[in-house]
């Protein structure tokens, strides 16, 4: 089995597992009156670890699965998750973030896009659902809760995908210092001589 097949299988299992765990357990645990939403966090993590194209594909697949399982209008969640996966990937490609807290901010942004995006799409579809201060409040609390769990979710996704990932930002950063490529204390021929 090639690495790419392994990776695709892991991503499929990750998307399926996320949707099942979200619906069977996480959505029934209320924190500050709302429930955490693993979907945007997992899609964001995949985008951040693998780039824009895998992120967008993962977003589409996970969103479609969510819509299917929940009897929602097909295409709504996938449309939102494509954006989340794609832009998380673009952040990686353009900025190459290596800071450990990047997933925290990205998790908050992904949840905000999912929450507000869903509100806009439902409004455009003419669903007579509540658009109120309460809705905004719930979206903000969900963003807060998701921000709190963004780091563990990112770490878990990285662990699941780590052996099949083409390159890992952390591994790349560590390697940069150990091989001597970027350290100002080292030269091309070797380490600087010690001064006495």
């Amino acid at each position: 089995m090639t690495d790419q097949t392994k990776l695709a299988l892991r991503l499929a299992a990750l998307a399926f597992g996320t949707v099942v765990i979200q619906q069977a357990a996480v959505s029934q645990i209320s924190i500050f009156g709302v429930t955490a939403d693993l979907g945007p966090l997992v899609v964001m993590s995949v985008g951040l670890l693998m780039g824009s194209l895998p992120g967008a594909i993962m977003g589409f697949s996970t969103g479609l699965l969510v819509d299917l399982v929940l009897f929602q209008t097909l295409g709504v969640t996938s449309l939102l998750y494509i954006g989340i996966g794609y832009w998380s990937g673009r952040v990686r490609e353009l900025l190459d973030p290596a800071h450990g807290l990047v997933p925290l901010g990205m998790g908050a942004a992904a949840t905000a896009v999912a929450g507000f995006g869903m509100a806009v799409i439902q409004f455009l579809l003419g669903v007579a659902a509540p658009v109120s201060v309460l809705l905004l409040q719930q979206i903000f609390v969900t963003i807060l809760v998701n921000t709190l769990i963004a780091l563990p979710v990112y770490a878990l996704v990285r662990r699941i995908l780590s052996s099949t990932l083409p390159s890992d930002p952390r591994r790349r950063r560590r390697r940069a210092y150990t091989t001597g490529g970027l350290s100002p204390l080292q030269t091309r021929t070797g380490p600087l001589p010690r001064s006495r």
Partner: protein
Amino acid sequence: MHDKQVRRRRAVLLALVVVSLILLTAYFGEPQSSPLHTLQRGIVQVISPIQEGASKVLTPFRDVAGWFSDTLHAKSRADQLQKQNSTLRAELAQAQSAELLNRQLAKQVGLDQSNTIAAYQKLSASVISHDATLWYETIEVNKGSDDGVRINAPVVWEGALVGKVTSVGSTYCEVTLITDHTFAAAAQAQDQNGDSGVLVPRVGNPNQLVLQDLPTINPGQPAPQVGQQVVTLGFKNGPLQDLYPAGIPIGQISDANQNNLYNNHQVVVSPAADLRHLYAVQILIKPNAGTARAQLPSG
């Protein structure tokens, strides 16, 4: 090479967005019997046993989270329940004597009891999936057409109405909760006059309902009060009957603002069931149910 990669990336992104929009357009406004809906039901049919298994496996985690939440709110809840208990004891005594009288009178006049909750069988089911978004208030349970569940069957928990069945597979069914924007039911406030109206979710607060289209009440006349029960009306006219049997508690009046009551003919109702923490429900199944049903238009 780089240009090729960029073009490829953009093409895939565009393709995914277009597919999503096509799905959205095709699905939206299609009837329940359309191919996409059928495909959706088929996929849920396959996934539902896995969800049921996952739900059972993850029960301890849910219980731990629930334990923390319950412990935090235990004291205030105990005080609240103590007060409620003393009120209910007094109401129970009155209700028991009223029920006895009602039974005797109904027997005397030969009243049709076929649309009361007593005519239904209760089928217990476990919740295997819960959509907690504000937009779709639905749950999925592990009983389906093989167990006798039909579309539009009322669903209750702890005696209170929680929703109705909106989609049925052989081993699962989807229940739309009473706080979903599509819900509407004929309901009655248990006040002096038994004022009835249409119960719909409250726009602006998905955790509350509004009993609207109440009869005109003039100042000085008895009117619905805060704390009074709201129950299903359960009308029946020949072969045509309400989806919900009469007398199922839905909630309590939580706001009977006079201005709102006299001008807009409506009161605010809080659901009796805790819809955010449903782990099991009971589906009401009517043996030899007729096919003619009446449903109030939503919205």
